[in-house]
């Protein structure tokens, strides 16, 4: 297959996934309980992963910031306020999504890809099932909800660990550290917008990689790798775009 043909087929498949996912989310016929099962896969099974990652990042961020400021001015009173602000609109949603892009993205691509190469997707089509609506839509809905839930959870863990780090290593009073005064509605809106965009993008990009799998187990391996790379890259690009949108439209350029 030439590159032009491959690109054309890929673009066609991607468009079909986006359209079918949008339509299927509104009126599709889903297997009973499948969205809940996927929410458990995406959410419950990522809890420890997100807690550890966001917890450590919260600790490192606060420690490094306090260390640098201590060397220059020694005034640590604003560290907490700025930490909370950047966690809400940037690090919380983006780092949670990056973690989900690897764990959930790989899972979706491997599961769907192995169904493609074993002809199970063709068998679904022969039973009158639209594969995108059956396989991608439940994962899409689960990801939309659970990315939000995990982001809130991850931010809470990061704040807790950051607060403890500031208190135990630099003796910053938690009451001073936990200053929400710098967190605006614009920050919350920007963070929320990112959560929705990431939650939607990860299953679509990973599902695209899975449904595009060809060959045997090697093809599934490639699809999984592609899903992780493409999902992570998509999160980064969306972060750049939405940070710009958020900065100028929601956060008033601040």
């Amino acid at each position, binding site marked *: *297959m030439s590159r032009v043909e491959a690109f054309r087929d890929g673009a066609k498949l991607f468009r079909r996934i986006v359209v079918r996912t949008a339509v299927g989310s509104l009126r599709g016929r889903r297997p009973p309980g499948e969205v809940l099962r996927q929410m458990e896969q995406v959410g419950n099974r990522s809890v420890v992963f997100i807690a550890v990652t966001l917890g450590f990042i919260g600790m490192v961020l606060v420690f490094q910031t306090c260390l640098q400021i201590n060397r220059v001015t020694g005034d640590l009173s604003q560290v907490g306020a700025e930490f909370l602000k950047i966690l809400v609109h940037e690090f919380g949603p983006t780092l949670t999504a990056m973690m989900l892009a690897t764990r959930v993205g790989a899972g979706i691509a491997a599961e769907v890809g192995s169904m493609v190469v074993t002809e199970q997707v063709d*068998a679904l089509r022969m039973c009158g099932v639209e594969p995108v609506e059956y396989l991608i839509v439940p994962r899409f809905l689960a990801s939309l909800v659970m990315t939000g839930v995990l982001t809130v959870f991850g931010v809470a863990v990061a704040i807790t660990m950051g607060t403890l780090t500031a208190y135990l290593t630099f003796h910053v009073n938690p009451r001073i550290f936990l200053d929400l005064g710098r967190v605006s509605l614009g920050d919350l809106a920007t963070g929320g917008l990112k959560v929705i965009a990431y939650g939607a993008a990860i299953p679509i990009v990973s599902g695209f990689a899975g449904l595009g799998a060809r060959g045997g187990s090697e093809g599934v391996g490639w699809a999984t790798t592609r899903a992780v790379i493409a999902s992570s890259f998509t999160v980064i690009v969306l972060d750049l775009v939405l940070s710009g949108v958020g900065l100028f439209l929601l956060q008033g350029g601040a």
Partner: protein
Amino acid sequence: MTRSFSGETVLAGIDLRVDRGETWGLVGPAASGKSVMLKTLCGLLPPDAGAVVVDGEDIAAATEERLMLVRARFGMLFQNNALFDFMTVGDNVAFPLVRRGGVEPKEIRARVSARLRAVGLAGTEDKFPSELSGGMRKRVGIARAVIARPDIVIYDEPTAGLDPVTTQKVYDLLARERDATGATVVVVSSDLDALLRFVPRVGMIYQGKLRYDGPAKKARDADDPVVRQFVRGDIEGPL
């Protein structure tokens, strides 16, 4: 119809007609395009050019929505069975009926039990495909293919990897299903002896072309030396 992959022609102008209620077999060397042809016939793969007419409707030009309705008239056994590995045997067999709708759960359960009994797998409803042997999985695939009583049934290698006794049992099963439903049947098989006993008419595909399409009994004495060598299994010849 024609169909190519990566610039390589797999189906190079196939012209074929299978009548309602007919049983037609397809043979050919490995990687000669048999499975591609089956998938094109049932609308899983669109042809690059040409038409695939099912009951007067050209499905080559049909939308995916329309194709879903047309495919509901088909039952298909895939080469590797393609059983849903996340479902039990009972759910696998019931799936076409569940998706079609309009049948009560009690009726579905009864029909699943009856189908599994017919293929010699009574009581396996709660097992998963991974717990079954190759022959058992094949028979579950057959049960799933025919449970919704489709007008057209496609069997892709129904006896691949099975021992001779199980092979004969499977063909007996296919014959009983065909006689009971009167469905149009298309079978691809590498087991020529068993296939030629099962189908009255057979075709042979080679290098993208249908080199033979005629009575199964006369395939061994076909004029085309390629067909003759393949069907007889001779070592010497053009193949």
